[in-house]
C-alpha cells in the first residue's frame, strides 16, 4: 500500500516534470522561428500604423513569395544533404525562356515548356552531381555559370520586354486581397509537403539525408532519389522565374543575382539542418516571411538599404548560433 503511494507520487512528479519539460520545449525550443515571426509581427503592428495597412501586408506577402517558392525546393534538396547553387541561373533562364517563347507559341504552351525546362535542367544538375560524383556545392556552382551564359546568349545580353497581360496579372494580381503569387507559393508548399510526407520518394529523401550509407545498404536507389530532389528544385525555380517575369514585365539573365543565397538563408533560418535529414517546409516558409517582414520594417523605419545587408547577415548568424546552443540544450534536457 505504502509503496503504491510512493509509486503514484513518483508517477505524478514524473508527469509534472514531463509536462513542464513539454511546455518549455514547445514554448522555447520548438517553433523558435514561428514564435520570432509572431513576435516581430505583433511588435511592428503595435508600433507602426503603416505596418498594419492592407497594402503593406500584400507587399510583404508578395515579396516573401519569390524567395518562398525557391525555398520549397531548396528545403527538399538540403534535407537530402545536397545543395543547389544554380537556382539564380535557372530562374534567369526560365524567365528569359517564358519572355522569348510566350509571344511566339502562346502563353499556356510556353508555360508548360518552361516548367518542363525547369524539370530537365534540374535533372541535368542531378545527373552531374550523381554521375560525375562531385560535391553538389561545386557542381551546381558550375552549372549556375552555364545557365547564366545560356540565358545571356539567348537574349544577347538584352532585357526582354514581356507584354502579356495574363502573365502580368499572374505576377501582380490579387484574389480576395491575397497576391496570386502568394497563393501559387502556398500551392507549391502543399504539393511538396505531400511529396515529403506521403510518398516513398519523400521518405527516401529524408533517409538519404540522415544516413546515405545506411540507405544504400537498405537498397535505395540513391542516385535516383537525389536526381528527384534536384528535379523538385528545378520545377519550383521555373515557377518562380515565370512569376517574376510576370511581376517585372521583363526578363533578363541576371534578374535573380544572389537569389540562391537568399533562398538558402530562408531555409536555414527555418531550422533545416545543412547536415541533412532534418527540416520542415513550414519552417522555410516562415523563414522567407521573416526576412520579408524584417526588410519591410527596415524600409518603414527609414533605415537605409545598406543596413539591410548587415541585419540580414546578423539575423542569419544569430539564428544559427541560437540553433547550435538549442541543440546543446535539448541534449541537456534529454539526459
Amino acid at each position, binding site marked *: 500500500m505504502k509503496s503504491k503511494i510512493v509509486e503514484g507520487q513518483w508517477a505524478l512528479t514524473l508527469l509534472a516534470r514531463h509536462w513542464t519539460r513539454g511546455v518549455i520545449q514547445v514554448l522555447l525550443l520548438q517553433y523558435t522561428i514561428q514564435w520570432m515571426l509572431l513576435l516581430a509581427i505583433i511588435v511592428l503592428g503595435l508600433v507602426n500604423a503603416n505596418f498594419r495597412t492592407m497594402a503593406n501586408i500584400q507587399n510583404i506577402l508578395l515579396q516573401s513569395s519569390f524567395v518562398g517558392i525557391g525555398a520549397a525546393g531548396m528545403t527538399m534538396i538540403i534535407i537530402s544533404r545536397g545543395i543547389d547553387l544554380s537556382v539564380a541561373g535557372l530562374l534567369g533562364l526560365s524567365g528569359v525562356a517564358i519572355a522569348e517563347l510566350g509571344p511566339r507559341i502562346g502563353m499556356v504552351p510556353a508555360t508548360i515548356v518552361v516548367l518542363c525546362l525547369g524539370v530537365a535542367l534540374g535533372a541535368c544538375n542531378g545527373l552531374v552531381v550523381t554521375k560525375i560524383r*562531385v*560535391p553538389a556545392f561545386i557542381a551546381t556552382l*558550375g552549372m549556375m555559370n552555364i545557365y547564366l551564359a545560356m540565358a545571356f546568349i539567348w537574349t*544577347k545580353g538584352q532585357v526582354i520586354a514581356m507584354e502579356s497581360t495574363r502573365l502580368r496579372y499572374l505576377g501582380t494580381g490579387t484574389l480576395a486581397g491575397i497576391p496570386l503569387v502568394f497563393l501559387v507559393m502556398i500551392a507549391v508548399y502543399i504539393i511538396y509537403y505531400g511529396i515529403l510526407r506521403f510518398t516513398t520518394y519523400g521518405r527516401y529523401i529524408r533517409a538519404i539525408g540522415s544516413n546515405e550509407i545506411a540507405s544504400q545498404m537498405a537498397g535505395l536507389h540513391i542516385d535516383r532519389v537525389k536526381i528527384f530532389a534536384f528535379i523538385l528544385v528545378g520545377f519550383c525555380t521555373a515557377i518562380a522565374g515565370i512569376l517574376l517575369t510576370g511581376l517585372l514585365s521583363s526578363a533578363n*539573365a541576371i534578374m535573380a543575382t544572389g537569389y540562391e543565397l537568399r533562398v538558402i538563408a530562408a531555409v536555414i533560418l527555418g531550422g533545416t539542418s*545543412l547536415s541533412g535529414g532534418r527540416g520542415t517546409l513550414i519552417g522555410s516558409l516562415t523563414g522567407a516571411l521573416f526576412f520579408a517582414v524584417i526588410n519591410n520594417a527596415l524600409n518603414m523605419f527609414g533605415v537605409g538599404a545598406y543596413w539591410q*545587408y548587415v541585419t540580414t547577415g546578423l539575423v542569419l*548568424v544569430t539564428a544559427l*548560433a541560437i540553433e547550435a546552443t538549442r541543440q546543446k540544450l535539448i541534449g541537456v534536457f534529454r539526459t
Partner: protein
Amino acid sequence: MSTDRDSLIQPAGVRQVPFLILFLRFFENLGLIVMLIIVVVGTSLIEPRFLTVINLINIAITASIMAVVGFGMTFAIVMQGFDLSVGSTQALTACIAASLLAIVPMPVAILGALLIGLLIGVVNGVVIAELNVPPFVATLGMMSIVRGVALLYTKGQSVLIVGHDEYALLNTGKVLGVPAPFIIALGTFVVLFVLLRHTPFGRHVCAVGGNKMAAISAGLKINIITVAVFGLVGMMAALSGVMLSSQLMIVDGTLGVGLELKAIAISVIGGTSLYGGSGNMPGTFLAAFLLAVINGALNILKIPAFYQYLALGALLIFALALDTLRRRLFARILKESS
C-alpha cells in the same frame, strides 16, 4: 617461390605504386599548363595583338589579384571549409585603404586594410569554431554584413585616390620588366606554399581537413587552427583589395561581387579537392592565370563578355570530372598494391 620471398622482403608493388602516384602527381598541373598554352597560342594565331606586352601585363595583373584570394581560399578548402565573405572583404578593404591614404602614410594605410581583413577572418573563425556555426552559413552571413558595412562606410559613393603616385606603383611598377602585382602574388605564393607544405601548421591544417575526428584525437587545437586559417583567408582577401584599389584608383562598395565563387572555382580547377586534406597551391596559381587568359582572349576577340560564364562553368565541371577520375585511379592503384 623465389618471387614470393622477394615480394615478402621487398613488396614490389609498394615500391612501384607510390612511384606511379608520384609520377601522376608530378604531371598533376600539366593539364592546366597545356590548356594555358592552347588558349594562348590559339588566340594569338587568330589575333596577333593578343601577344602585345601591354595586353599580357594586364592579364598578369588580373590573374595576380585573383590568385592572391585563391591562395587563401585553397587553405580554407584544404581544411574542408570555404569562405564566402572574401568578395565583400575585398570591397571593404579596398575602400578602407583608399580612404586611409588621404590621412595617413601609405604603409600605414595598407597595414590598416590588412588588419581589417584579418579581423573579419578571425571573427569568421571564432563564429565557426566557438559557436559551432557551419562555415557555409557563418561566412554567408559575414558576406552580407561586410557588404553592408562597405556600402555604409562609403555611403554608396566612390572613393577616389588622388595624388598617390607611390600607391599606383603597386600596380604599374616593374622590377626587371615584371609587373609589381605579379611579384606580390609570387611572394605570397612562396610564403603560403612553404607554410602549407613544410611547416607543422600546414600539416595540421591538412590533418584537420583530412579527418577532423582523428585530428581532435591526436590533440590538435582545432579551434585555434580554424581561427588562424580564416584569419589568413581574410588577410589574403584584404591584400587583393589593396592591389585592386591600386589598379583602379577609384573604388566603391560594390567591388568583388561573385569573387568568392571565382576563388573557390580556381582552387578546384587548380586541383585542390573539395574533400579536404590536401591542397595544390601551384595549381591555384595556374588556374588563376588560365581564367585571366581566357577572359583576356574573349576581350581581344571581341566575344561578348558573358561567354566567360560559360568558360568558367565548363572548366569547373571538367576539372571536377578530372578530380573524380584521378581519385578513382589513385584508389585503384592503392588497392591493387595492398
